[in-house]
């Protein structure tokens, strides 16, 4: 029957599961080296680790899952074939026997014993296939009618279907029979010769077994193919990352060009690597710059001190050298402070200091502070008055950023020049503009101006660290804005520095923010294009 076959395969499946659970326990053991060595006994460490690698291999797991699924579906499919052929034949035989028995019992009811015997003889004679078996015996055991030689041994109960080996006309055969007790001690046997069916069953079983073997082979080879495909795809990523881990940042994961999931992962990894490479470049540049910009004043201070120690002839000379050296070291400290500040801002740590503030008042104060300086240098600082511009930001940082811009503008202005300071509201953005009529910058230098330690050729002779605009840039980014630097153009010399900041949010959103002070605006909106400066 079909059911045992199903159970049989279920048993095999259970075996597979068992193997799987063993594999898992092997893995847990491997996590504890002592336990694992105790369990593995004398096996060499190499062999053990290879086995663990196999167990841990995702490609092997994938292949196994593939093979098991493939075989399970094949088993289900074959079970259905079995049920639809052999099972159907068996059910038909059972039904035929029952129908025969019912017809015969009707004959018995109609005409008694002789009618039944007649009917049996008739049926035996008219049975073309010669597969119907009948036997009616008297209470003594004598045959009354039928095509079986004698009542078979062991057939006693009337509620069971028996499978018997019988011998008919010198041929051994298999039969399925049912016995019926008739009144008066007579017994009736109705059955079918199932020899042909047994041959068919055997044939089918053989075929299915062979098919199973082939399916198993196909499943395994499919699993191997899946595994090698998987490994090839992962190997690319692994090779690239390994090369990068060992220092070769130029490596990239090759793309297959098909745009599939693996390509997308590879693209993401490549993007990440590009970014890392850029960051590393930045760090390298900065550390080179630090090495240079800090080494120079330190060297100078050291030289001064050593020179004074060796050659100073008077206390005054010594004191002067020491004072100059201290000033040099103060310069080093200032550079450090600026670098740390920029790093702190870029890390976004200062977001916690954000508060509501009014921009035009802030500029008023700064204009007042720097107006005096401008005046002393024979320059004019002109503040363009504006409506109040409420924004959400970090007051000290904005002050410092604008101060840096003013410092620069005043530093590079020509005598008698004018520095313009102003702020305008432009939709959701606030623009602070500092414009000077100074020496300006070469176009190639403009884009690099906010790099750390960058100093334009024309500015080399003036004091400064090359960090001022880096800080402005960092402050702009912290406020979700942008820092733009351009020449005034149209024949007029000078620079226009624009600090674009995100203006205050709509009132409803402010109320939200007040309830949850930790929520901070993110620079998710894009900055509008720059309008021509005033």
């Amino acid at each position, binding site marked *: 029957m079909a059911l045992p076959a199903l159970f049989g395969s279920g048993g095999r499946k259970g075996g597979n599961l068992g193997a799987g659970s063993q594999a898992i326990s092997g893995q847990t053991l491997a996590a504890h080296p002592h336990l694992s060595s105790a369990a593995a006994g004398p096996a060499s460490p190499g062999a053990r680790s290879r086995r663990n690698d196999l167990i841990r291999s995702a490609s092997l797991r994938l292949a196994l899952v593939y093979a098991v699924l493939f075989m399970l579906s094949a088993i289900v499919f074959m079970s259905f074939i079995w049920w639809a052929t052999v099972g159907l034949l068996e059910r038909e035989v059972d039904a035929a026997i029952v129908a025969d028995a019912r017809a015969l019992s009707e004959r018995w009811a109609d005409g008694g014993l002789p009618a039944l015997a007649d009917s049996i003889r008739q049926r035996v004679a008219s049975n073309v296939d010669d597969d119907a078996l009948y036997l009616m015996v008297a209470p003594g055991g004598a045959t009354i009618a039928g095509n079986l030689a004698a009542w078979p041994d062991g057939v006693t109960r009337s509620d069971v279907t028996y499978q018997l080996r019988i011998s008919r006309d010198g041929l051994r055969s298999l039969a399925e029979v049912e016995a019926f007790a008739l009144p008066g001690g007579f017994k009736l046997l109705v059955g079918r010769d199932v020899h042909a069916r047994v041959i068919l069953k055997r044939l089918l079983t053989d075929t299915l077994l062979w098919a199973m073997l082939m399916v198993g082979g196909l499943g395994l080879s499919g699993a191997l193919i899946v595994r090698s495909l998987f490994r090839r795809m992962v190997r690319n990523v692994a090779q690239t990352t390994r090369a990068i881990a060992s220092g070769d940042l130029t490596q990239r994961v090759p793309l297959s060009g098909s745009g599939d999931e693996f390509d997308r992962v590879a693209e993401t990894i490549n993007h990440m690597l590009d970014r890392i490479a850029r960051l590393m470049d930045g760090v390298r540049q900065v550390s080179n710059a630090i090495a240079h910009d800090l080494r120079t004043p330190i060297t100078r201070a050291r030289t001064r001190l050593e020179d004074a120690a060796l050659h100073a002839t008077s206390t005054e000379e010594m004191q002067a050298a020491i004072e100059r050296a201290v000033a040099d070291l103060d310069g080093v400290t200032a550079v450090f402070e600026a670098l740390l500040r920029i790093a702190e801002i870029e890390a976004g740590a200062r977001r916690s200091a954000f508060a509501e503030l009014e921009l035009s008042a802030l500029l008023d104060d700064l204009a007042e502070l720097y107006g005096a300086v401008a005046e002393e240098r024979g320059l004019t600082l002109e503040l363009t008055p504006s409506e109040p511009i409420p924004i959400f930001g970090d007051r000290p940082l904005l002050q410092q950023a604008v*101060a840096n811009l003013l410092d620069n503008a005043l530093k590079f202005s020509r005598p008698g020049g004018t520095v313009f300071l102003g702020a305008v509201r432009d939709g959701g953005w606030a623009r602070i503009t500092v414009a000077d009529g100074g020496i300006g910058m070469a176009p190639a230098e403009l884009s690099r101006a906010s790099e750390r330690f960058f100093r334009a050729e024309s500015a080399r002779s003036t004091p400064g660290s090359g960090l001022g605009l880096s800080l402005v840039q960092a402050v702009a980014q912290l406020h979700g804005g942008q820092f733009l630097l351009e020449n005034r153009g149209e024949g007029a010399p000078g620079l226009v520095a624009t600090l674009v900041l995100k203006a205050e949010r709509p009132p409803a959103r402010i109320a939200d923010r007040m309830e949850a002070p930790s929520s901070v605006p993110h620079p998710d909106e894009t900055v509008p294009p720059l309008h021509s400066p005033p």
Partner: protein
Amino acid sequence: MRILLVEDDQTVRGFVAKGLKEAGHVVDQADNGKDGLFLAVSESFDTIILDRMLPGGIDGLHLLETIRAQNNRTPVLVLSALSQVDDRVAGLKAGGDDYLTKPFAFSELLARIEALGRRGKGETGPATRLVVADLEMDLLSRQVKRGGQKIDLQPREFRLLEYLMRHAGQVVTRTMLLEGVWDYHFDPQTNVIDVHVSRLRQKIDKPFPVALIHTIRNAGYMLRDE
């Protein structure tokens, strides 16, 4: 003034103590947090200079919080190599009155300590009138007179002079002025403070025979009656 100096670096401690003694102060020293805390709670000081990172299990902020919890109001200047803005905020939040980042100029430290010491003594009620020599400032009518002669000042010049007069006889550094008068906490690259002080001088000192605002070399300014 009697000053408690808690600092673990021997060079810095020796240097600061020597400088403070030269300036006429009495200095008690501790090189770890435990001794510092013991001294701070068992004796009375006019000012405490406190390093933030200290050995001995009790760091500067911990010490500060402990004495503040005991209602000890001694002015404390926190000295630290931690220069980030958040560190500064943490130092002031823990009860510090001032925060100075290492490395520092001794003149800056001294000026700040003396300003703190005066604050600790407590000005007797809110003054309405400040007087230094023949210079008078009426804080209510916002009028300034020198030798009976009225001087017109811009609002910022008024605040600058007020700060100098409140710290008369003390050195005030440029950073102190930037923080105290303008409330700016950054280092301008240009000499903005010098320019403003020189403008104030034009109005306060220039027309008069005796100068009151003095430049202290390598330190800052001082308003004093000569």
